[in-house]
């Protein structure tokens, strides 16, 4: 990540900035990514994701791991589930967040996220979850619920010291921290506590940015989550562009811009994955030159309009939101990706061996070209998208 991230750090107090300098200097990064969706919508426990990512132990170094799961809170599925981390168990921050949420939301449930004190993680922060419904007042009534929640999440992240919102979607959640994946999974008891139809997992090997609880993946805004392997050399440009749309990066790592870029393009601007892929990883100009006129116009327009959202550098990401999960790499594939299918299950991972560890007899294994997404959709969403496409035609 570029030095741009330091700005925020200074604003938020110097203490952690000091610690940054003592971080080990690593030359390369090799995070492990894994995602699975059951396209029939069947929900299952965390075991599959945990075992798969454990199989890629050497891709992480114990300085961060995390999971996202979808469909885990059916009893509260109409409420936004806010997972909030309080750094250093800062109870003043907690009081401030409580007050802020009470003023802006109807809170139907507020509780500490259940954790296993026996799990071998050191110095975990306090992590709380709130199930909330927006309580909009005045001018803010014009905002959609989602936009309202984004605004309030940004407020907590940037204005309340030591409080960070880990996840903010409905019927989903992010669980992450410092440790190897199996340790984080044990800490949050993912195997027994939750059942979801999408699971995404990440094992971190931080290189340029600190390994701290807030910096673990997945990154989340509303129900959009991103896990990432690589580094984003266009971070500064991307970050400044996203600030124009009200997104502020506070988590000291480049992946955050990816989550906000996806939210902007896919939720707010309602662009399909196929187009978003061509914004983040556009074709090279010399390939655009040899396209037919229609395509040339489309890709030239996309490159011009969305130039600041071109994500440069080596990266593979897995993005998920309700109903959909996709994996994609940078256009010259400087980080690996493999996809596998077995019946309704679609897997995306950094390594085939991780998929095979949980599903040895795959129907199909494939690796897309750089910049081409592998998409797994719920069948119900597939149907809905087809219906919408027919309406347009």
């Amino acid at each position: 990540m570029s030095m741009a991230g330091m700005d925020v750090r200074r604003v938020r107090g110097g203490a952690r900035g000091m610690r940054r300098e003592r971080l080990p200097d690593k030359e390369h990064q090799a995070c492990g990514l894994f995602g699975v969706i059951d396209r029939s919508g069947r929900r299952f426990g965390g075991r599959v994701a945990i075992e798969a990512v454990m199989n890629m132990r050497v891709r992480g170094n114990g300085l961060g791991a995390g999971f996202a799961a979808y469909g885990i809170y059916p009893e509260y599925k109409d409420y936004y589930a806010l997972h909030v981390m309080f750094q250093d168990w800062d109870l003043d921050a907690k009081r401030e967040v409580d007050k802020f949420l009470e003023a802006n939301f109807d809170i139907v449930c507020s509780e500490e996220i259940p954790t296993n004190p026996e799990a071998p993680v050191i110095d975990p922060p306090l992590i709380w979850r709130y199930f909330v419904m927006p309580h909009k007042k005045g001018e803010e009534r014009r905002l959609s619920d989602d936009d309202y929640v984004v605004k309030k999440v940004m407020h907590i992240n940037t204005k309340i010291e030591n409080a960070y919102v880990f996840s903010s979607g409905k019927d989903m959640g992010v669980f992450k921290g410092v440790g190897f994946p199996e340790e984080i999974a044990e800490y949050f008891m993912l195997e027994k506590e939750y059942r979801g139809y999408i699971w995404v997992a990440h094992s971190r090997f931080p290189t340029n940015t600190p390994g701290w609880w807030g910096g673990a993946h997945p990154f989340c805004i509303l129900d959009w989550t991103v896990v990432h392997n690589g580094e984003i050399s266009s971070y500064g440009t991307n970050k400044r562009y996203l600030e124009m749309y009200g997104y502020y990066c506070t988590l000291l790592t480049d992946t955050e811009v990816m989550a906000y870029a996806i939210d902007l393009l896919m939720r707010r601007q309602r662009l399909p994955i196929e187009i978003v892929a061509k914004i983040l990883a556009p074709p090279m100009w010399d390939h655009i030159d040899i396209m037919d006129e229609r395509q040339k116009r489309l890709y030239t327009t996309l490159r011009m309009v969305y130039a600041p959202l071109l994500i440069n550098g080596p990266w593979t990401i897995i993005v998920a939101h309700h109903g959909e999960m996709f994996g994609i790499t940078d256009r010259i594939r400087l980080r690996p990706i493999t996809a596998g299918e077995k019946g309704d299950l679609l897997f995306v991972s950094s390594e085939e061996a991780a998929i095979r560890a949980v599903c040895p007899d795959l129907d199909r294994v494939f690796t897309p070209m750089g910049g081409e997404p592998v998409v797994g959709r719920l069948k119900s969403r597939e149907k809905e998208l087809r219906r919408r496409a027919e309406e347009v035609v």
Partner: protein
Amino acid sequence: MVEYSIGGLRDMFLGNVRRLKEILKYAKISSDVAEIDASNLVHKEVNDLMRYCALQGVRRIVLKGVRGQRYIGTRLYFPDPRPKLEIEIHGFPGNDLGAFLDGHRIVVYGNAQDGVGNTMDSGEIVIYGQAGDVVAMSMRGGRIFIRDDVGYRTAIHMKEYRDKVPVLVVGGTAQDFFGEYMAGGRVVLLGLNLDDKPHRARYIDTGMHGGIMYIRGRVEPWQLGKEVGIVDMEAEDWKFIEKHVGDFCEIFGIKEDEVLGGSFLKLKPVTKRPYGKVYAY
């Protein structure tokens, strides 16, 4: 540092490695064949056991339950003249399979991941399936046969010296930067699974400055890097193809005549120093 890591950095490569005597139970040696159950071993342990078996005089190692362990076969260099091993892999070997391989033969009954034959010195690797990115990276001798497709940057910086000329034959198709910065060696791409569709790889042989590439099937000029040209096949080229593609077909049980009947493109670098003007000062 303590604040950000648990007791300092933990070594994910050596963290769970047991001593040799604790893992001997996973190897069954009978006369000159060893069977290793790799399902509970981390990759250093796999290589420790393989080395142990080789030193016991084993000639053939069968690895079962491989589940992503890296660098398999890499630490089997022995200074004395010692017979070369036959290594059979069942399961899914991890990255850098056969890195620095010293004359042994590895056969994988399944897919391989990234970096097959990384800086391989001699020997042979056979994959009954597909392989990932950077296959044959910096390879300097021996042969690799891959039945299906390969990923990005295959044969990147492959090299040759005098009689050491590495050979890679890929039965399927390849992705971008195929043969990038090749400095030597021979690469053959057969496109057997394309059914007359063109290869999709772009930037083929970008930066190539040595060696020869043969491509069977359709490739448009825009898919090639600026540093290579298409030249005519000569008798010597056909002789080379017949030998190595012949072996490939025999190994995988493919009809040789159909393969050799296709049209082959021969690609050679147009200059030995493509970037001389860029970097010379």
